[in-house]
């Protein structure tokens, strides 16, 4: 049983990185969101009070990291989508290439949504200067 490759394992080996890419964009959004929320909650409850500038700068830094990650994922997904190769955006055929490019396309679109979502999350830190 050691040398054989059941279908699931073979497919996962083939598409592991694309499954990873699909979730990584939204996951970056989610982690950034939770980290921003937790940082604000802890800072406002346990922090020194007064200016929240360090909190805002921290959220800014986290945003830069998250956006960087999402851009990287988006770029890799764009490459996987390989749109300019055949201008296909339907991926409706029953073959490995379509499945592969479909997963790339979906990951690319999710990266865009995650990018916008992360920018939105960062906006309050840009404008709001106090906990209250």
């Amino acid at each position, binding site marked *: 049983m050691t040398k054989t*490759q059941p*279908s699931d394992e073979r497919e996962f080996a083939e598409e592991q990185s694309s499954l990873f890419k699909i979730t990584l964009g939204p996951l970056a959004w989610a982690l950034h969101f939770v980290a921003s929320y937790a940082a604000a909650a802890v800072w406002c409850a346990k922090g020194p009070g007064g200016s929240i500038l360090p909190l805002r700068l921290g959220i800014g830094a986290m945003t830069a990291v998250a956006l960087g990650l999402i851009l990287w994922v988006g770029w890799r997904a764009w490459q996987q989508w390989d749109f300019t190769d055949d201008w296909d955006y339907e991926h409706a055929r029953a073959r490995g290439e379509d499945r592969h490019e479909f997963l790339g396309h979906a990951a690319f679109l999710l990266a865009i949504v995650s990018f916008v979502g992360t920018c939105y999350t960062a906006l309050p830190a840009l404008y709001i200067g106090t906990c209250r």
Partner: protein
Amino acid sequence: MTDHILPGSRRPGVEETPFEAEAHGPEGIYPPTEEMLREPVDPDVAKAQEARLRKAWKTPTGWRYWSAVNNSEVGVWYSMTAFVFMLLAGILALAVRVQLAVPDNDFLSADRFNQFFTMHGSAMMFLFAVPMFEAISILILPAFLGARDMPFPRLSAYGYWCFLIGGVFVMGSILFGVAPDAGWFMYPPLATQHSGMGSDIWLLGLSFIEVASIAAAVELIVGVLKCRPPGMRVNIMPLYAWYVLVVGGMILFAFPPLIAGDFLFELERSFDWPFFDPTRGGDPMLWQHLFWIFGHPEVYIIFLPSIAIAAMVVPTAAQRPIVGYSWIVLSAVGTGFLSFGLWVHHMFTTGLPTISLGFFSAASEAVVIPTGVQLFAFAATLMVGKVRMSLPMLWISGALAIFVAGGLTGVMVAIAPFDWQVHDTYFIVAHLHYTLFGGMVFPVIGGVYYFYPFIRKKKLSDRMGRWAFWLIFAGFNLTFLPMHLTGLKGMPRRVFTYPGDIGWDWLNLVSSVGAFVIAAGFAIFAWDLVRPKGRQADPARNPWGAGTLEWSHEIPEEFWGVRSIPHITSRYPLWDQPDLVARMDAGRFYLPDAEEGRRETMITSVIDATPMQVLRVTGPAWVTIWAAIFTGGAFIFPTFHWYPPAIICGGLAIACVIYWLWTSTAEIPEKEKKDAGLGLKLPIYVSGPKAAGWWGVWITMLGDSTAFASLVFGVFFYWTARPDFPPEGTDHAAWALSLLALALLVGSWAATFGARYLNGRSHWRTVMTSLVAAPLLAAAGCAALIFAVRVPDLQPTTHVYPAVLWALTIWTVVHVGAGIIMQLYCLAALLAGKITPRHDAPLWNITLYWHFICLTVIVTVAVTAGLPRLL
């Protein structure tokens, strides 16, 4: 990527992936060649096959009918029960509207009014909206996937009976005047300090139903991942399946926080542990967080599967493939994620830091993007297609119009300062009804008209359908459009009456009239649904000219699901694969026979749907009903504080489940492989990640871990929200005992894992020794864990800190207890020869469970014994 092509078998656009030789794996030719598919089936053989299939899938008759577990029966019961609960909740709404029709009315007393609006909301959410998704999916998903049934039919049946018992119990309480009355979100301290039993009924009755929801989610996710027909890769599966996958995942992450909240809440109600009592270190805000971490995603859990119905109706109406398949997948997945970042927008007025409100306001605006994308994809499909304005499409159009209106007010209330003005007013009532009618009620009714010929093999009346539509559509807007204004004029929700002459009179009267117009529409719809249709001629097999697989169904009805399981190479196989239905009917495709008289369906791989196994699914059984009855007892008796019968019921429920698993799962088949047709031989018994059961455990435990994570979140919440957590000079859990517990329980995990690993590699005595040691270690570990909080005499009623330690300990001990039962089950199975070196599925499944338990134990010890000493 390497492509293997069998000589002479190439079909355009289809890749060949022959199986590599594997002792217990699939063997033979896949995918089938065109020549193979073209070869006719001998009619005599086909007839004999049909007779055998029909016999295997026969629905029991007479009173035994109720022992059926087939998705086509359970799905109908489930959806009709949910529909009845909806009608009951609707009647409550009518009573509420009568009371509010005129000022200073005394049609309902304040107390009864409270019960009615609470039950209206609770029933619509928990007994209608979410169960309806599960019901409809159980009913139609296998047909979308060309599967014979869901992977765990008895689990669906068990879920249904749990739902029925829990629903009747919760709804029935209203007849005795003891129904929950603290609003559908049960805020403490009102709900915790309430003296009646209403809150207990809500907590226990609905927790019970939530368990059923999670069971259905597990079933549906495994169904989508593993029961697709051969060839239906992820990029061509029906959009409905994508939505089910996303929504199932959301249920796993949304419902558990509420279950964790219910657990804490009931501990406070029954044993006075002060989780939400600020005088003893608790905080009512924790409930609000846990409730809305569930509550907001739940809105999308309701919305997405209903809009998924639209994603099936729209391409049929437009007579062309959906525009932007990838975009809709993006939209479903994106909405699924973003919907978890919205919960605090229900809590804008609770005094959280403004910057925190800002994050949730921003996420609430961001979720509009993916939600909007799918609506634009539908609009684009309709624009480029040739639209036939069928009755289902009329309902979908109404849905889109109403939902967009609800979405626009949603954008308004997502802005915190606006929400401060309208919070808890009728503006919110109007907003939420617009989103729920547009996002759920209309598309689901559209779906009922669309799928009725598939479900009942008859058509609903077009004329009555249009009457119902216009009555409900007009009545809806008459009721809820004025409510925006009522709310802006300051009328708070949930008041049982109001004085005259402050500008609310006529608005309320109009709303009340509108409510009865909606009711008239529903009466027509309900009558159309149940009226006898015996004399009506059979409808066409594919009455709407749709392209998806469910319309290959048979009229008159056959209970085998599909005559043979097809090889799919298109998103719209009925449009693109011309000979498909004829070949399915002829039994040309896979599993055309039931030689051994067993119910069988096909398990395929997750990504490309290559055939992997012939799964024998279970048939009719009473044990599922008994299991549900006893589970019901275990939840319902505690509402009356009758703990001994509850414990007995719990024990009997466990006994039923063990009997059920022992007698009908992981049976060792009479032969290793069987001929699946078209030159393919598939294994009957698989274990580990190849088996549907393993995926079921994995998905269940994901949900379970979320509930545990919610409890841990509670600890951190108390730490940030309360200055006295942990209180000065308090005792902590005994660290030495905690570490001992950790060592013993990790040891038990290692023994379990070892048993699985050694099985087949070593002498069975070694495996046995491992499996004997494992439960002993686990039991000792449990004892150590309990003594770690008992020895320092931590009293859970004194303060929230000891209460939290106890709650985490109980949670872990109960889970280890289940783990012990599983270890003993495997030990017995090993002794009885149910587990052999080759047949080891139960061992794989319990090992997976124990991986999660090991993690739970590590976190519990870290949080109870380690962390408080550091804070």
